[in-house]
């Protein structure tokens, strides 16, 4: 299959650069898969598991949260706020984060802002648990 050049750069640094066959990830508008020769495209990234299929056909999963996806003249860039390859995910930590967020959400007196924060934490933890091997 045709391949294209992909760059994944998160705030923590360059996560991946090289030829890939396809990328499947969750955007704000639902799951999107980018193949080679895609038209110029730009969207925001939601929260979900990204599947990257490399030129040799192997696939790697990652927890991909926030940021933007852009395709410009065949050059694909993923700029996530947070990107963790599945083998880098600390499942124990994600589980305890999930438990803590759930505990916080039980409190009825939570301010709106704190609730939003706790919910975001819960979603992040869930995505990480779901993306781990």
């Amino acid at each position, binding site marked *: 299959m045709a391949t294209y050049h992909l760059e994944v750069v998160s705030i923590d640094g360059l996560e991946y650069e090289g030829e890939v066959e396809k990328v499947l990830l969750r955007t704000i508008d639902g799951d999107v898969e980018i193949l080679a020769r895609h038209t*110029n*495209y*730009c*969207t*925001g990234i939601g929260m979900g598991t990204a599947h990257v299929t490399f030129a040799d056909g192997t696939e790697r999963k990652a927890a991909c949260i*926030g940021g933007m996806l852009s395709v*410009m003249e065949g050059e694909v860039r993923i700029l996530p*706020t947070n990107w963790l390859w599945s083998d880098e995910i600390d499942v124990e930590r994600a589980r305890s984060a999930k438990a803590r967020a759930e505990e916080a959400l039980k409190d009825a007196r939570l301010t709106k802002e704190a609730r939003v924060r706790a919910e975001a934490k819960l979603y992040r933890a869930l995505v990480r648990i779901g993306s781990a091997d």
Partner: protein
Amino acid sequence: MAANMKAVKLRIKSVQSTMQITKAMQLVAASKLRKAKEKADNSKPYLGTLLDTLHDIADGNHDFQSPYTKAGKNDKWLYVVIAGDRGLAGGYNSNLFKFMESETKGRDIEVFPIGKKSVEYFKHRNVPIFTEEFAEVAKVTISECFSVAKLLCEAYKEGKFGHIFLCYTDFVSMMSQVPKASPILPLSDLAVGDGAAKKNKSLILYEPDSETVFNTVVPEYLAGVLYTSINISVASELAARRTAMEAATDNAEEMIETLSLYYNRARQASITQEITEIVAGAEEP
């Protein structure tokens, strides 16, 4: 002579204790710098790619539905100025402020200071300040960057400002740090291509639509730019401090050397004088 010698000795002691402090500060800055530089190095590709992508979008954009893409009518400029929390960092803070002064000449500006020195400086100059909530640069975390980004977006959408700029110190190398100002909003300020290049660009597909995309992407972009610029500024500050403290330590060493030379000379002179006096006393009948 004896009184003079005592003064010199005291002076040597005081310079020595100053040197101890500058040496300690140099070592602390150097060890902190290693970590900060790593963080800044990791941030740089993100900032670069992010800006490249947005330049491309700004160049190729034909869509002006979103308030973030078109230039505002308001002729007020907001500058986000990232400086240090503490002094004794050579020209780090003053270079940035001097640069700001020349950059903002003749413009109607308001400032969003980050870093205690930045707050102090603009308060002193009576420049209108947007908020002082994020005064300590050392305490700004990624989630705080998101709150700052949200504040900026809201202010921009309300039309309080026509342009938002970010002013920070770029980490060029260990020896050189350069103050820089870059436009962050509206996205049309980011466009670098000329008209001809613009026409050749094909349309960009936004899904679900450009407004929704920009509304979600812009706050994240701002937070990312802020966070990475803060990382780079912190590394610059530490590098500037290390260089300044190194110079101060060297100067102190030199001073001690000259002073000890002077002290020894004075000591020798006084001994000679004493001997002469004793000899003269013994020779008298």
